[in-house]
C-alpha cells in the first residue's frame, strides 16, 4: 500500500510586496502577487524528498481558499505532488484558526487513511502558527512544530526530527501518523519542473462544505471564537533630523552631540 503524505498549504499575498496607501492608511493589494506560503514550500519539499527515497509514496496537497487558490495547487503539482485538494465554499469564508482547522480536519477525514501530515509552521499573512497544531489536536495526532531536520527509518515506522528552540534544538522521536510543521531551515524547496508545468492531467479536486460534511456551526466567520474588533495601521513616526557635516568625522561628531543632548548616552 502506498505511503500517503498530506501537505497543508496556503496561498498568501507576498507580504514583502504590500504597500500602504499613505492617504487612506489602507493596504494596497492590487498587483500584489499571490504565492505558495514559504514555510509550506518547505513542508512540501520534505514530503517530496520522501517520495524521492521510496517508490510508492503519494503526496497530496490540501488547501482552503477562494477558487484562485487552485493556481497554487498547480504549482505544487508542478513541483512533484501527485494530487491537490481545494476546500472552497463561502460557508468557510472568514474562518479564524479554530474554524479553519475544523474545515481542514473534515476534509482530511473525507480523504481517508494517511501516514503523516506536513504543514508549514506559519503563513506570512497572519503569522499565527496555530492551524497545524489545531488540526493535529482535532485529528488526535502527536505533533512536532518548528521541525528543522527530518529522518524516516527505512521501514517507514519511525520518524526522528530536530525541533528548533531559541537556544538550541531537541531531537525527538515520534510515532506515525503524526503532524510536523516545517521551518525554512528544514530544506531548500525545489523549482517546478518543465514536465510538471506542462502536465495536462493535474489531479485537482475542489470540495465544498457539503462534500466534506463539515458541521456548518463550526466553520466560517460567525462560528469563529475570535473576531476582529478593529483594524488599523500603526501611526507613522514623525520624520527626524537629517544630520549635516562636511566629512564623515563631522557627521559622527554631530550625531554624538545630539545623542548626548538627549541623554541617551
Amino acid at each position, binding site marked *: 500500500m502506498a505511503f500517503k503524505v498530506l501537505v497543508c498549504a496556503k496561498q498568501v499575498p507576498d507580504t*514583502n510586496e504590500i504597500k500602504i496607501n499613505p492617504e487612506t492608511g489602507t493596504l494596497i493589494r492590487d498587483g500584489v502577487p499571490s504565492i505558495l506560503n514559504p514555510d509550506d514550500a518547505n513542508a512540501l519539499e520534505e514530503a517530496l524528498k520522501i517520495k524521492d527515497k521510496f517508490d510508492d509514496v503519494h503526496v497530496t496537497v490540501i488547501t482552503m481558499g477562494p477558487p484562485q487558490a487552485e493556481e497554487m495547487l498547480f504549482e505544487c503539482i508542478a513541483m512533484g505532488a501527485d494530487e491537490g485538494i481545494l476546500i472552497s465554499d463561502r460557508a468557510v469564508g472568514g474562518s479564524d484558526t479554530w474554524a479553519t482547522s475544523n474545515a481542514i480536519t473534515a476534509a482530511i477525514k473525507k480523504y481517508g487513511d494517511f501516514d503523516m501530515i506536513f504543514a508549514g509552521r506559519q503563513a506570512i499573512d497572519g*503569522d499565527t502558527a496555530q492551524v497545524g*497544531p489545531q488540526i493535529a489536536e482535532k485529528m488526535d495526532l502527536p505533533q512536532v512544530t518548528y521541525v528543522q531536520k527530518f529522518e524516516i527509518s527505512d521501514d517507514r515506522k519511525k520518524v526522528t526530527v530536530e525541533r528548533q528552540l531559541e537556544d538550541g534544538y531537541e531531537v525527538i522521536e515520534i510515532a506515525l501518523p503524526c503532524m510536523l510543521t516545517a521551518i525554512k531551515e528544514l530544506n531548500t524547496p525545489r523549482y517546478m519542473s518543465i514536465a510538471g508545468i506542462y502536465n495536462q492531467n493535474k489531479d485537482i479536486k475542489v470540495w465544498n462544505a457539503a462534500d466534506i460534511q463539515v458541521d456548518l456551526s463550526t466553520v466560517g466567520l460567525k462560528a469563529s471564537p475570535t473576531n476582529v474588533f478593529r483594524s*488599523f495601521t500603526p501611526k507613522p513616526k514623525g520624520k527626524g533630523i537629517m544630520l549635516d557635516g562636511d566629512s564623515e568625522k563631522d557627521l559622527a561628531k554631530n550625531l554624538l552631540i545630539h*545623542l548626548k543632548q538627549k541623554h541617551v548616552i
Partner: protein
Amino acid sequence: MSTNFADYKNIWVYAEQRDGKLMNVALELIGEGHKLSRDISADTKVCALIVGDGIGHLAQECFEYGADQVYLIEDPLLKNFTTDGYTKVISDAINEYKPEIVMYGATHIGRDLAPRVAARMDTGLTADCTHLDVKVANYIKFANENTTLNTSSLDPDDPDTGLKMTRPAFGGNLMATIICPRTRPQMSTVRPGVMQKMERMEGATGEIINVKPAISEGDIRTKIVDIVKSAKELVSLTDADIICSGGRGLGDPSGFELIKEFADKVGGVVGSSRAAVDAGWIDHSHQVGQTGTTVKPKIYFACGISGAIQHLAGMQTSDIIVAINKDPDAPIFEVADYGIVGDLYKVIPEIIAEWDNAEALYDATTK
C-alpha cells in the same frame, strides 16, 4: 465550548520554565497580567501557572514579580516540555479552575502549546500579541497615541472588560485588535520583550495551589532523545540597551565584522535585517523584525538597512533610531530620529573613534 462567563475568574500566566529557570517573558506577562487584573476588578487575581518537575522554588520569584497566586503542576513525566503532556495537564487545570484569561509567551514552546490547548478547550486564541487592554478607555488611549484608528465610535465608559488583543498582521503592515466574545477562557500568546516586568518586591508571598496532574507515560506520544544547547553566541536582543544592526547595504558578510566592532565599542548587541539573514551573512538569532525579534532598545543603529515594513514592525518603538544609509530615499529615514546619508564603512569608524569624546563634544557646544 464554555459560555457561562460568570464561572470564569482571574488571569493565568503560563510561566514557562526551561531547566528550572523561568523565561523572561513569564515575568513580563505576570507584570502585564497584574495590571490587567486590577483593571477588571479589585478581586481579580493574576496567577502564575508553573509546570515541570522539582520547580516549586520558582513560585517565590513569581510572587516577587507580582503574582497573587501560583498554581504548581509537578510530575517526573513533566520534567521536559512535551506537547501531549503539557496540553493535558494544563487543559485539565483550566477546566477545573476556570481562569477568565490565559496568556502564554510567544516562544517556540508557547506557540506549540497554546493552539493545542485552545483547540482542546474549543476557545479562541490570538497569536503574538504586542498590546493588551481590558478597559475600553485604556484601549482608546492606546489607539489615539499609537495608531491611525478613529476611536469616535468607542465609548470610554463602556463597562466591557473583555480582552482586546492587538497584534501585527500582513508582515506588520496592518494591526488588528482581536476579541473573543463568546467563549472562555480568552487566550493569547504575547511577544517576548514587549510587556514590562514589575519592580521586584523582595520577600513578597502569596498562595500556592498544588494541582495533582493526571498523567501517565502512555499520554505522551513523542520521545525526547536529546536536548542540544546551541554553542552559538547567545544574542539577547530583547534585553539590549543599544542594538547595532546591519542589512543588505553592508554589501557582503564581512560587513558584520565592522558592526560587531561598533557594538563592542558602544556596549551593544548585533542585530540584522531579514535580507542579511536570508543572504546567509548572519544567523537568524540576530534578526530583528516581524519574523525575527521585536526590540525596543534605548538606541537602535540601522546600518545599511533600507527599512522594509517587516523590519520596521520589530524596531520602530525603539527610543532613538539612528539610520546610516547611502540612499537618501531609503524608507528607514522615515522612522529615524537621526539620519546620516553616507557610506557606512566611512561613517561607523568615525563614530567608533569619537564615541568616548561625546561628553567633551557636547560640552563644547554649550559653552
